[in-house]
């Protein structure tokens, strides 16, 4: 049913109806934004990347294959765009006058009661762990954990083979496991792990 509505919206958007595309955005904004946020680790950049992914999807809507899931197609655009962004990222040099950036919990835009602090700390820890992975490994992990995609689906989205995805996931899991024991932010990590139980 939902798929029929989605297909109708796609057809309308293809005919030039921007409002129909707006409805498609509302349907998939959370999935696309979460992917961008998990990939990039920063809310403003995630919003910019999600916006860019939707704009690209709109510009290339005629290339969309109706036999495929629209959500998967969108996520594929977003993940590849985020991988490109991460590759282009350059080192940011901090001047001594500027000092170190504030603690993640201080720059979070979420409400900060006790539970929110724990959730926020946990989120930051997860982002710190993901940041240790290369863009390709990160994309595989995010698609597997947050979108429950099969190896074949991830391989299709990232334009690679299923065995490459298995290998990336294993390497990524190894890196994450190593970081769990070697992480310096022990307190944050303990909180995060307790929250995960």
């Amino acid at each position, binding site marked *: 049913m939902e798929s029929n509505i989605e297909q109708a919206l796609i057809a309308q958007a293809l005919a030039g109806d*921007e409002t129909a*595309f*707006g409805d498609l*955005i*509302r349907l998939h*904004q*959370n*999935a*696309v*934004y*979460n992917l961008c*946020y*998990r990939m990039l680790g920063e*809310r*403003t950049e995630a*919003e*910019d990347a*999600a*916006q860019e992914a*939707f*704009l690209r999807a*709109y510009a290339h809507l005629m290339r969309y294959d109706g036999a495929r899931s629209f959500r998967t197609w969108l996520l594929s655009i977003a993940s590849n765009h985020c991988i490109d962004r991460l590759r282009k990222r350059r080192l940011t040099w901090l001047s001594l006058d500027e000092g170190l950036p504030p603690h993640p919990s201080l720059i979070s835009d979420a409400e900060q009661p006790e539970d929110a602090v724990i*959730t926020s700390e*946990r*989120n930051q*820890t*997860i982002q710190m*762990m993901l940041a240790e992975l290369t863009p390709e490994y990160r994309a595989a*992990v995010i698609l*597997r*954990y*947050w979108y429950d995609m099969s190896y074949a689906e991830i391989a299709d989205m990232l334009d690679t083979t299923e065995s490459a995805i*298995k*290998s990336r*996931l*294993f390497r990524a*899991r*190894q890196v*994450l*496991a*190593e*970081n*769990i*024991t070697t992480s310096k932010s022990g307190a944050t990590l303990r909180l*995060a*792990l307790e*929250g*995960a*139980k």
Partner: protein
Amino acid sequence: MTTQHKKAAMNLAIDRLLDEQEQVALDEHLDRTPEDAHLWERMKRADRMLRTAPKIGAPHGFAERMMLALAAGSRPQMDKRLGLGMALGLLLTAFTAIPLLGIALIGLLWVVTNGAALGLLAARVQIGIAALVNLAGLLLQQVSATYASSPLTLALTLAIIPVILGWLWAVRTFATPGEQVTYRIPVRIAG
């Protein structure tokens, strides 16, 4: 259990895709190898943490800001207008240039087919070339006279050459166009 097999088995086990027999083989391997068992435990902790991580929803007003960006980015329409303007300009230029080119072509044909006119044209061209050669000769004479009277002028002229070459190199190296960056200003819509 080979390293490759162990790797595949751990991956599948984490994703709950390992069949019973393979799971038993993996458990036996982990019982025998404390190092792998330690890694396996840490991998499970990381897995648990990721599995329970929440999805972060799009910020408030994202879809509305997206619609604004879509409306602002209706570049194809703008390009169409630009294309139309350019086509009209080209059409106007063609309408002006065609009669002029026609007149020039008729004149050229008349000169080529008329012997006397051709002779006259050849004589004029010859005079023109002679005048240019004279002018160049005069200029050369003037330059050599200047250099002979003041050798410093020659040295300065020669010094300018590496400066120009250096400047061209600097322009080529440092003035290459960079990547175009688009900045978007987030706009919050009330409601």
